[in-house]
């Protein structure tokens, strides 16, 4: 009886020692596999998942992905959000993060150039320009143009075509490009501007790829945040994102890699 309880307590002690050792190693720094938290612009959701899976397979590091609107992420980052890497849907916010001391300057690079698409499950938008000019619909869904770069590009496109003022009363805004997509997908809005990557593997409806000349290019920049300056996994993730395997995935989802 006595020896049994003694055995139990020594077992507890061993477990405690192991836990302590684990804690200390984590303080010293990761030796092997590590975790990085990546804030990913909503339009890049699907490619980011594929890239993270391949990244884990190749390096053993785990990339935890958090999806949302770039504007919301920037606000969160300036308020101490626990992200180490920021994949924005624009170039402006990563640069702001660098300028205001939240990110590491020399890690900034363009990982993709976004493509905007007009998509509908109700009306025929194969000729998007004509469909927008005809205006035979009640609701047009876009991402919030102030918080989401694809929303800004959508507004620019309508302005280039000279239809913005006419269509303005029909616009409904999703909080991110994901919600803009969802409004069209549920057919609550007849059509909407979404990211080409969101339509990867989607066969429903008709689509019109917005010519690049109609809006300023959607440079999507990545940056290492100060919180991840000493994180191996975070640096490795950014390096992997620049590599050929990740770029193949990015191209597959319809992003442009370089402006010709």
């Amino acid at each position, binding site marked *: 009886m006595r020896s049994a309880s003694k055995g139990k307590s020594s077992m507890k002690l061993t477990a405690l020692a192991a836990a302590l050792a684990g804690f200390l190693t984590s303080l010293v720094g990761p030796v092997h596999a590590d975790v990085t938290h990546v804030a990913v612009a909503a339009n890049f959701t699907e490619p980011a998942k594929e890239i993270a899976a391949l990244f884990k397979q190749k390096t053993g590091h785990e990339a935890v992905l958090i999806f949302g*609107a770039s*504007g*919301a992420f*920037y*606000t969160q980052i300036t308020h101490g959000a626990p992200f180490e890497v920021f994949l924005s849907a624009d170039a402006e916010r990563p640069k702001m993060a660098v300028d205001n001391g939240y990110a590491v300057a020399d890690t900034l690079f363009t990982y993709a150039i976004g493509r905007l698409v007009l998509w509908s499950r*109700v009306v025929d938008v194969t000729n998007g320009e004509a469909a927008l000019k005809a205006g035979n619909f*009640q*609701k047009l*869904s876009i991402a*919030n143009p*102030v*918080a989401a770069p694809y929303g800004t590009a959508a507004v620019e496109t309508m302005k280039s075509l000279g239809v913005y003022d006419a269509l303005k009363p029909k*616009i*409904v*805004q*999703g*909080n991110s490009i994901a919600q803009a997509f*969802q*409004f069209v997908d*549920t*057919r*609550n*809005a*007849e059509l909407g501007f979404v990211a080409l990557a969101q339509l990867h593997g989607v066969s429903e409806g008709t689509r019109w790829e917005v010519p690049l000349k109609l809006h300023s290019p959607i440079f999507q920049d990545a940056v290492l945040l100060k919180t991840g300056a000493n994180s191996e996994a975070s640096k490795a993730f950014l390096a992997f994102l620049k590599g050929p395997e990740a770029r193949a995935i990015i191209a597959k989802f319809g992003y442009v890699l370089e402006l010709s």
Partner: protein
Amino acid sequence: MLGMPDEIWVPIRLTIELATISTLSLLVVATPLAWWLARSKAWFKEAAAAIVSLPMVLPPTVLGFYLLIALGPDGPGGLIASLWGGRTLAFTFTGLVIGSILSSMPFVVQPIRNAFAAVGDRPLEVASTLRASPTRAFWTVALPLASPGLLTGAVLGFAHTVGEFGVILMIGGNIPGRTRVMSTAIFDFVETMRWREANLLAGGMVAFAFAVILAMILLEKRFTRVGA
């Protein structure tokens, strides 16, 4: 008003409109429902009460998700909208009213039901011996006696609608002057780093919530004193 820009003032006005219309509709729907729940002896009564109370427990996203489908072209909302040539009730003020009614329902039904239950059988029996018809007894006896409960329900319903956020974010589409209410406008201002505007609206909300809760406490005190 007071030199406030439209983007501040319009969401405030819209919120008050939404809360007023929702509260009035809620009183019309919730009062008979609460009466039935308080008086009925049907076996499925408590099941019905549970259904009414669901929005109290469910996250607003659940309601928002189902509403987005139900209000859309494939759901009953699309059918109703087609009466005036629309396709969907999402992104409309009507849609927001429907969402608010559903999500605020338990906060209105509960106090009214309790008030009707507290009236009990006795006053109604007395009214009936005085040859009052059941309808007349309801209007002249039960309803006045339950009025503190109705007032509590109305205040709670109004306040809850003002505080509604998740459902509106999911079905509103953020249209200025139509579906962009205070709570979603605050969210928008915060996302776009416009702290000053966010502060104005959020501070107003805090003051409003304080006033509502204080009023509730004072009302309750007054009524219990009168009752005692």
